[in-house]
């Protein structure tokens, strides 16, 4: 199964060592962006090259890997990355959040609460939260250094001035342990509260931008807001049409040419587990575990 032409998990040991050193520094300074010598990976930038490198540096032969893309285990990005590690590392893979020891994710945090010992690896397109406010990288680094984060609130001010509320709905800026302002990668702001106090280790890798940052377990993470416009996580105001869950993040799916639509959990593992337990939504049918296997 494993492709013997490659080192374990594709990257050579020296590269993994370099990445692990960056990871250690990132864990030591929560929210701080650590530069690292990002390698070219056999997939295009924007497909999770940063996350893949972090995962490769973390994997051991005993690990159980889960890869999700927008919460789903069966989308292109998730399938290709999972296959990549099956081929180059030969690790066991799973779709179950609870059984996985390393979870690489794009744009979601699983609904099921993570436990101690698990590692959640995020794919990050733009690690710099101040990027579109201050174009100079030298200046943004200085702003992080001196804790000058007033500009981040200018963005939220603009949101309220234009839309009457904070309209930023993903990649919502957070402050880590009262120090660094961090871009949590483009997760919906619904997931922001899950960043804080998580029992799992959370690692963020940006391949093109060559940055790694991290949240060690039980880190305090606060979403930025105004006193009179407090942070509110949002989701579609529906229940899941397949499993009936009322508190999970939903995808809206158009199902015919007349514009009928359904709302389904974006976390496929969460949805399937619930259906196996007998929950049924508006358009769902009772699950038959035997038929699925």
């Amino acid at each position, binding site marked *: 199964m494993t492709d013997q032409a490659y080192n374990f998990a594709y990257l050579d040991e020296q590269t993994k060592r370099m990445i692990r050193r960056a990871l250690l520094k990132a864990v030591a300074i929560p929210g701080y962006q650590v530069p690292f010598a990002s390698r070219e990976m056999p997939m295009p930038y924007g497909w999770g090259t940063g996350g893949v490198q972090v995962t490769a540096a973390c994997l051991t032969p005993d690990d159980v890997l889960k890869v999700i893309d927008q919460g789903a285990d069966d989308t292109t990005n998730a399938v290709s990355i999972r296959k990549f590690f099956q081929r180059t590392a030969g690790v066991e893979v799973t779709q179950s959040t609870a059984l996985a020891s390393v979870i690489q994710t794009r744009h979601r945090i699983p609904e099921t609460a993570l436990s101690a010992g698990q590692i959640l690896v995020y794919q990050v397109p733009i690690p710099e939260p101040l990027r579109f*406010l201050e174009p100079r990288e030298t200046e943004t680094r200085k702003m992080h250094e*001196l804790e*000058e984060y*007033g*500009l981040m*609130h*200018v963005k939220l*001010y*603009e949101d*309220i*001035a*234009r839309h009457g509320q904070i309209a930023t709905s993903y990649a919502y800026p957070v402050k880590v342990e009262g120090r660094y302002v961090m871009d949590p990668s483009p997760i919906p702001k619904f997931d922001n509260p899950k960043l804080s106090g998580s029992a799992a280790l959370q690692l963020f890798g940006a391949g093109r931008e060559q940055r790694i940052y991290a949240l060690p377990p039980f880190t305090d993470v606060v979403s930025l807001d*105004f*006193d*009179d*416009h407090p942070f509110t996580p949002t989701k579609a105001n529906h229940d899941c049409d397949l499993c009936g869950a009322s508190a999970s993040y939903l995808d809206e799916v158009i199902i015919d040419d007349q514009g009928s639509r359904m709302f389904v959990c974006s976390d496929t593992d969460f949805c399937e587990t619930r259906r196996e337990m007998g929950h049924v939504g508006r358009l769902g049918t009772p699950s038959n575990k035997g038929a699925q296997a």
Partner: protein
Amino acid sequence: MTLISTIAADRPLLHVDNLTKSYGGRVGCADVGFDLWPGEVLGIVGESGSGKSTLLSCLAGHMAPDQGTVVFETASGPRDVLSLSEPERRRLARTDWAYVHQNPRDGLRMGVSAGGNVGERLMAVGARHYGQIREKASDWLGRVEIDTGRIDDRPSAFSGGMQQRLQIARNLVTGPRLVFMDEPTGGLDVSVQARLLDLLRGLVRQMGLSVIIVTHDLAVVRLLADRLMVMKSGRVVEQGLTDQVLDDPQHAYTQLLVSSVLQV
């Protein structure tokens, strides 16, 4: 000279001594020294290349001078500005100081609405209440004669004169005590210039601001400045009360400068 001030006026607000900056072998400015008192407006005039902007950049901490001292009277006593650590200097620059650029595009965030531009300094010093920030921004737009209905427009939709007034509002919103201005009326036509000067004069008197204004336009300093410094080749050749210097210039260069003004 007006003496409206909130702090004891027995010490100058800014004390500058022997300030020198050279670019390799070329002199930027040399051996400049002066005192600026609270509530005073100091004009610096001179031809292009005479070291006016170099001097202003050194004073405002944008550039490090080769020699000299700049002592600023902070709320907690006099401090040597040049020996401040960078965080302290940047804090000073967004609280007690303000810098009005010649080109408003350098001083404004063009992609952010007028209200956001004015509010930025407030948020930078810790304001976290949207309603209060907006109220203050709209108050300041009114004070610089910008229609408050345009609070959500971007500066790119404003005329040059409005952009300059917006920049002034953005700088004055945190109530600074010392304002640096680099050719604030450059590039504006005369009627807009007159209106801006009128506005500036009002704000300076009303807030008791101390201002260092660099310009090559003698009419501007005649209107605004209490005291005048004339620079030539990086050195101060003459200084004194504005009317005294302009009406009775002593140095040959000042005489030339005054006589070069076009009469209409």
